[in-house]
């Protein structure tokens, strides 16, 4: 149990600045996800924490102690990998006992701890089985059990679900989430999958090209993305981005581009009143925040149904609007009508969830 702090951490591979001035605090017991596309620096960060890679500069504190100069084995950190890397020739009991034997713990104490872990993971009947005789979920539990039986201060997980098929991944991520909460061990979890990150994380660190873009809860990174990158990375189908400008007309502020114009509601208009009208903006609207109607209504934008994709209880609709395509998604039952291909429809944007980004800096303005 421990708090982890990274301060001004840098990592270079030759000319590549893999991690660029990383500052991060992970609270005791928290599950913190490092999320980003390939090459964003998430795995390099994990390796520096584990001690496999030396930072070029910066400090790593675990439980208040600077651990930069400790060997990996002396950091009291446990790790699980993509493949669970269980010893094929050992039973579950032996897998659990192995890391303790290496510490020269008395046999009685080892036995007690193994028993305790069996209780915790509900694995009593499975203690004498070999990995080959276990299901994927059971193997995952053994890997977790073996990693945490030493009672490490920190738990590192590198894409722990990436080798599973989609169905199993959805099941396992929930199990892993619950297990981590029960263990209460501070955990760093690396993934490139934004769906998984939202599911398991207390806190998500979105990274790109070695730099942290945003740190926040799953809801924060989804609802209040710091910039265009985070906005486009979190959510599927991704947020729609439309170039636009603001325009003062009579007493209202309009969002406009070549294809549409609609007035902002007063509370929103107030928040954008200091944005100059010549500023190039990007309007961000999530597919789930567009409502469709078969008839024109005030402040709606006409579009044409371009592609229809059924998805379980929902429908994803591609909409053509001049030379733009947008995606919306909604519950089939709540939509109130069944959109047809090439049908003319009217879009209403749920204004409380709209975002405006500065095109130049990509920062989120509202």
């Amino acid at each position, binding site marked *: 149990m421990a708090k982890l702090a990274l301060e001004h951490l840098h990592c270079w591979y030759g000319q590549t600045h893999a991690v660029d001035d990383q500052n991060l605090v992970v609270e005791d017991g928290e599950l913190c996800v490092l999320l980003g596309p390939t090459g964003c620096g998430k795995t390099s960060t994990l390796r520096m924490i584990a001690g496999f890679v030396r930072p070029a500069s910066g400090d790593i504190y675990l439980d208040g102690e600077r651990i930069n100069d400790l060997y990996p084995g002396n950091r009291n950190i446990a790790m699980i990998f993509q493949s669970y890397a269980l010893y094929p020739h050992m039973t579950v009991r032996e897998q659990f006992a192995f890391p303790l034997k290496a510490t020269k713990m008395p046999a009685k104490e080892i036995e007690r701890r193994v028993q305790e872990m069996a209780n915790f993971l509900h694995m009593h009947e499975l203690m004498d089985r070999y990995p080959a005789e276990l299901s994927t979920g059971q193997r995952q539990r053994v890997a977790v059990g073996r990693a945490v039986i030493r009672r490490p201060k920190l738990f590192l997980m590198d894409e722990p679900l990436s080798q599973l098929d989609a169905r199993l991944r*959805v099941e396992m991520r929930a199990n892993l989430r619950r297990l981590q909460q029960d263990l209460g061990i501070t955990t760093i979890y690396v993934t490139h999958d934004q769906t998984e990150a939202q599911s398991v994380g207390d806190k998500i660190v979105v990274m790109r090209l070695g730099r942290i873009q945003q740190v926040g809860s799953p809801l924060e990174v989804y609802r209040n993305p710091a910039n265009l990158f985070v906005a486009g990375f979190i959510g599927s189908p991704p947020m729609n981005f439309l170039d636009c400008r603001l325009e003062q007309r009579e007493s209202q502020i309009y969002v406009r581009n070549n294809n549409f114009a609609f007035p902002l509601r007063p509370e929103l208009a107030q928040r954008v009143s200091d944005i100059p009208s010549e500023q190039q903006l990007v309007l961000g609207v*999530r597919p789930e925040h567009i409502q469709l109607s078969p008839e024109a209504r005030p402040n709606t934008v006409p579009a044409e149904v371009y592609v229809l994709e059924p998805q379980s209880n929902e429908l994803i609709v591609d909409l053509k609007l001049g030379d733009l395509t947008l995606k919306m998604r909604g519950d089939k039952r709540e939509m109130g009508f069944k959109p047809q291909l090439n049908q003319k429809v009217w879009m209403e944007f749920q204004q409380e969830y709209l975002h405006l980004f500065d095109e130049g800096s990509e920062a989120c303005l509202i």
Partner: protein
Amino acid sequence: MADIKLEDVAVRFDHDDVLKDINLTIADGELHVLVGPSGCGKTLVLRIIAGLTEPTKGKVYIDGRLVNGVPPGDRDIAMVFQRFALYPYMTVRENWVFPLEAARLPQEEIEARIKAVTEFLQMGPLMGRYPRELSGGQQQRVALGRALVRRPRIFLMDEPLGSQDAKIRVEMRARLKKLQMDLGITTVYVTHDQVEAQAVGDKIAVMEKGTIKQIGSPEEIYDKPANLFVAGFFGTPRMNFLDCTLSREGGQLHLHHPLFKLVLPPAGAASIEASASSQEVILGLRPEYIELSETAGVDSMPAEVYVVEPQSNELIVGLKFGEEILKMRADRDDLGFEPKLNQKVFMTFDSESMHVFDRTTGQRIG
């Protein structure tokens, strides 16, 4: 015009029936998906249509003509494989031009087709590159493009988006669906991914262990799954299954579970009773049709919050119900409260959206 028909097709390797009783009619211009877990025989069906594998028995018709024994090259079919098989010494452009020049198409026609496909696949800046200079995803697009420029009577696609990352896949599947529709070329599309199957398919054939378990539109497959396999294969998280027994009390048909008793709506009750092979049934509930409340209500059942997974605008909640974990999912705004770990909550099942399966046969009975 090219419809495809498979009649009683079967394949035996050694003494194994790898395909059994395959009856499939694919209408002209349709995008027909074959979906199932690995080893279900979906790629084999594709190979039979292509003429790469001869069925042990059964007949294959293309455009009303029996094609058993017709070599692949004489079937006017273009195939996109999982492995791309590009010409390594040709640029992207040359890879695409080659089949068209071989078919002696006029130069203008060749240019027009190349241009259209270049735009569709967004390959403009990469046209001069060689396959080895492209990423896996880009190579796959080249392979897809080479099939598309030919405009054959039939497209056969084997996991055509399998190498794309999640974001591009969501984008490409919609554009592929649109392009297929515009070209009107009959397409058979193999995937293991139920999300993709629902999104692209006009019709879906769901396969398991060499047989077809159901054929239908994405809506039919999702809303009225024919059996337990199909019900569990589609949807994320998957359908919840609860063992129940049927009993008739006071003129009403009841579903009994150790923790609850439900009255089945009279409309469906008669057919359930008529088709059930015994009292033993399985109740299927989709996560999105379980409602959650903080307070007890009529017909509500107590459960305990086991795990909470945020997912964009939704929450997926794992609920401990007796010995089982049920999953529900709902829009955060619709839920009206934030479920907390270990909180006691109350579930109600949407009676319109219950599925009843025969426990012995696995078939849907209501």
